């Protein structure tokens, strides 16, 4: 069973719909026992970083997420769910994240391409340049995926599994041990996105 962690923000149904469509038994929950007993766990996320951290701490989901990682259960963070895994974000205010992975989340600004100031949020389809293709990013042909974000990851760790070019090279997915995370939305990325979710489901 795949457990999608419900921390009271955003639209979790599209992630649920996608796994459901692929035939996986899926549940949206904030129940510690269900999450700890799931085969796979998804940390989704739409919304602002500080609000999300507040809700996670209030519901002690930070402890649950760390237990999941120690248990070696595959965890997939999506969008804000990826950002939350890192040490810090500057969205609205400097705010500490879960600190499970090393790196920080910074605002997109002053990005140029061919002399044009690029638009923020970065909304739409961009092509992944895949760096690690053994796990959830395996067997992807023309990996265009859908993005909606105004903040991005900066990390010096060797955990980045793909990049995009948006004015500069930006890390958009990571993996380390049983932790997988994407800045883009696989649940909104058509067939390629479904393939990524299936790869995760089959880990």
């Amino acid at each position, binding site marked *: 069973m795949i457990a999608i962690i419900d921390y009271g923000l955003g639209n979790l149904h599209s992630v649920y719909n996608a796994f459901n*469509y692929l035939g996986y038994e899926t549940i949206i929950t904030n129940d510690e026992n269900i999450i700890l007993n799931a085969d796979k766990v998804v940390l989704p996320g739409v919304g602002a970083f500080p609000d999300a951290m507040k809700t996670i701490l209030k519901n002690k989901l930070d402890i649950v997420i760390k237990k999941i990682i120690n248990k070696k259960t595959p965890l997939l963070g999506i969008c804000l769910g990826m950002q939350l895994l890192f040490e810090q974000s500057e969205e609205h205010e400097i705010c500490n994240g879960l600190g499970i992975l090393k790196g920080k989340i910074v605002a997109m600004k002053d990005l140029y391409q061919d002399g044009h100031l690029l*638009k923020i949020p970065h909304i739409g389809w961009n092509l992944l340049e895949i760096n690690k293709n053994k796990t959830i990013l395996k067997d992807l042909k023309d990996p265009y995926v859908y993005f909606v974000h105004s903040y991005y990851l900066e990390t010096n760790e060797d955990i980045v599994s793909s990049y995009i070019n948006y004015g500069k090279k930006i890390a958009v997915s990571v993996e380390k041990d049983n932790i997988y995370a994407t800045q883009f939305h696989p649940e909104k990325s058509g067939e390629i996105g479904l393939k990524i979710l299936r790869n995760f489901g089959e880990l």
Partner: protein
Amino acid sequence: MLCKRIIPCLDVKNGRVVKGVKFRNLIDAGNPVDIAKKYNELGADEIVFLDITASNENRNIILDVVRKTASVVFIPLTVGGGIRTIQDISNILQAGADKVAINSSAIYNPKIITEGAIKFGNQCIVCAIDAKWNGLYYEVYSHGGTTKTGLNALSWAKEVEKLGAGEILLTSMDKDGTKDGFELSLTKQITESVNIPVIASGGAGSMKDFLDVFKYANADAALAASLFHFEMIHIKDLKQYLNNNNIPVRLV
């Protein structure tokens, strides 16, 4: 590099897709879920549902359409038409849409944009602007293009960006239904004055029209309805053509 998006728009009335020219001589064109699915397979980058249901009691039907579509189509969905309150926005997003397009309400109650953006994130608030040249400036119209507002489209676009809109869906009423190309001058002026994505709409008649609106007006996305419905252009061929002409698009 970020791709330019191709967006088919489905006019939905009482839960069915309708086809017609400028909302006249409407004929039933099928089930929105099936049609959205077909466009997704052809390579559409997003789907827009424009709810043109007239009566209030039938307005919940669109929520059911969105729910069903979102469980089988995994690309972004936008819903526009008749959105008046934060609760309307919430209902549509909860049903599985990713964005809402707000037109008249934004004009008469601009704080719906700001409140919507704060509550749901500016990425899901699209402001739809219908504009028509009045001899002096591009004037904004409300209520499906029936009511003059006196607003200048250029300053209104800047204003909605400030209010918190995450995208602008810009329709040229002069060009809509003509099939002689997008309104390049209007689109260019708007894309140059805001820093949020602009979806160009109205007037597409050929593949070259799409190339022009991306190349000369720097639109981020282009929307069309009847052109795709009546299969005058296939989305797949269009994207191949754009790709051959060095416009970055998502090929499927």
